């Protein structure tokens, strides 16, 4: 296991909500639109304090899942809870910030007025953080939002989301229209803020390599269903990349299950381990990108939901009983 990349694993010493508290918990969640199911029978829990990457092909249901968590969309089946509260309840709304893909802003407002919007509406508003993010990009506060460039507008939208001081920050494709430098800077801000305040982050992105730097948790969705869920390290440790022998024949892989025979980058066969394996030589741990690509390319592979990401986990019961004991 590679702990160097896990910046936000529990026990790093930052202020965190109690271990085991779930930021998001979904039970049998489904959403059907007129043209069919966008999301079907999705159950998982996202423990608080993680930076979670949400990965999947276009139209896989990522935005639907985010909309369900922020009360923009109502589920057809099942339910979802944000810190134990229904999405749309006063508590959930107060603790959640959502940056949608389109990043809508009032075009005729100035930047200062946009920040005032955040201040007027959010009791936990942090003007310093919001202004800092805007100032770091040299965006003038008097400028009208409509006159800003796409990247500057994204920055203002970020400032609005961060200034809310959420416990759960949901970002839908936040980096799509940013240049690489700004992207790095905002990603660094994101990781710093999340680490400092113990914010849970759910971020969807197609930039797999970038997710590897910021995420310690992972949800993979394809065809409306959950394919992978759990700690990044845990998921990686459950797989191995087996080298193909010189004559091209596949290595004997029983009891492991082949997810994808790779033929680009590092050649080999990516398999889910069915038993202990010794890394080195024939078997190497896959990178996050390799793992994600394998699952995105093989939608028929059976889903892998790590125990910590399953609802009804022992942690939930502990947390629930603790809450009960306090309220009793």
């Amino acid at each position: 296991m590679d702990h160097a990349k896990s910046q936000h694993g529990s026990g790093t010493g930052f202020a965190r909500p109690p271990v085991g508290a779930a930021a998001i918990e979904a039970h049998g969640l489904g959403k059907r639109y007129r043209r069919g199911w966008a999301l079907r029978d999705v159950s998982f829990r996202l423990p608080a304090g993680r930076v979670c990457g949400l990965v999947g092909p276009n139209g896989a249901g990522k935005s639907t899942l985010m909309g369900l968590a922020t009360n923009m969309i109502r589920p057809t089946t099942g339910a979802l809870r944000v810190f134990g509260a229904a999405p749309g309840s006063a508590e959930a709304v107060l603790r959640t910030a959502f940056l949608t893909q389109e990043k809508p802003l009032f075009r005729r407002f100035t930047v200062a007025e946009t920040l005032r919007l955040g201040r007027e509406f959010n009791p936990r508003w942090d003007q310093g953080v919001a202004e800092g993010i805007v100032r770091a990009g040299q965006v003038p506060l008097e400028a009208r939002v409509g006159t800003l460039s796409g990247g500057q507008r994204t920055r203002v939208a970020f400032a609005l989301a961060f200034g809310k001081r959420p416990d759960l920050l949901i970002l839908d494709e936040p980096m799509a229209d940013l240049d690489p430098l700004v992207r790095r800077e905002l990603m660094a801000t994101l990781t710093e803020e999340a680490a400092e305040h113990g914010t849970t982050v759910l971020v969807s992105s197609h930039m797999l390599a970038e997710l590897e730097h910021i995420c310690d948790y992972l949800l993979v969705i394809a065809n409306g269903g959950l394919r992978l869920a759990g700690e990044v390290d845990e998921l990686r440790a459950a797989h191995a990349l087996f080298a193909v022998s010189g004559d091209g024949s596949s290595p004997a892989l029983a009891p492991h299950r082949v997810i994808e025979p790779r033929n680009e980058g590092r050649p080999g066969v990516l398999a889910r381990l069915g038993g202990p394996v010794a890394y080195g030589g024939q078997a190497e741990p896959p990178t996050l990108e390799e793992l994600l690509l394998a699952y995105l390319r093989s939608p028929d592979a059976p889903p892998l939901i790590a125990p910590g990401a399953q609802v009804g986990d022992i942690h939930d019961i502990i947390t629930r009983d603790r809450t009960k004991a306090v309220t009793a």
Partner: protein
Amino acid sequence: MTTLTRDPARTAPAGPIRDNWIPRLGGPVWLVWRQHRAAFWTLVAVTLLGVLVMVHLRGQTMDFLAAQAPASRRSGGLPPEFETHVDRLFSIGSYLGYLPVLAGVFLGAPLIAGDLETGTAKLVTSQSVSRLRWLTMKLAVPAAMLALSAGVLTAVFTWWWSPVKGLSDGLIWTSFFSVTGVVPVAYALLTFTVGAAAGLLLRRTLVSMVVTLGIVVAIGFVWDEVWRSLGNVMSVSTDKGVGPGAVRPELPTQAEQSGDGAYFLTSSGDRLDWMTCLDQVENDRAHAACLESKHVIGWSIDYLPVSQMQTMQWLGAGIMLAVAAAVAAFVILRGRKRLL
């Protein structure tokens, strides 16, 4: 909710905020004001302009009336120049009649459709504010502005009309029924909420404006058809025969005749319409005999007296406000449930 829990140290605006003089009423009110301030300022400007013009024109009318002999102040008794004053009254009145159309199309329809079209509805609802509160303020602030504006304009117009009421045939109260008193306020609020509902359902600004225009015109037609039935029709009759020399029933001053002309009243109290015995009208004797055979003893005329005007206006306004309240409740409940 925001004002109660916000850290007082942070309430001082850090950026350049222009609307400082507007009383602090909390987040949603500020947002609605800021977002639609161009429309609100236009409304204020139109109201002020309208008031100035009407005060000026009323002054001219009053000067004209003061110059006339007091005895001539009755319908038909004033010189022909008075008609220019009447024309002005009518043209301003017809502009006032457009107020509900403007309220629905330019204030109501874009109100929610604009936020849905640009996605800013998502921006607002992902802040810590309940949709109920936001939508309520979203409707309440423009509705208050609109009621104020329509109320002021109508009050000044009514003030102009009152002294000339009934001074010419054209100045009959029914012509002013929908542009005086409490009606324009209720009417504008109704079309405003209808426009907002159309915007909520159609989610596109331009489409909702066009559809709202259609609905408002339809409401106008229906209103013109039905408002007279809010009153109690009175009738006045004679029993001195209907021959050539017989006296016609006389309407009270400023009353508007209704129904199909004069009816024939029979001795049993029944009324026969004006087409009775019409085929014998060429021959006086046959006509008289025909009417005699039907026991006609006089004429009867239906009318709506001016005394009922206020009652009818309040009744009509009450109905409009009730519908407006129902539409507003629909907007809030539906918007709360499935806005996005």
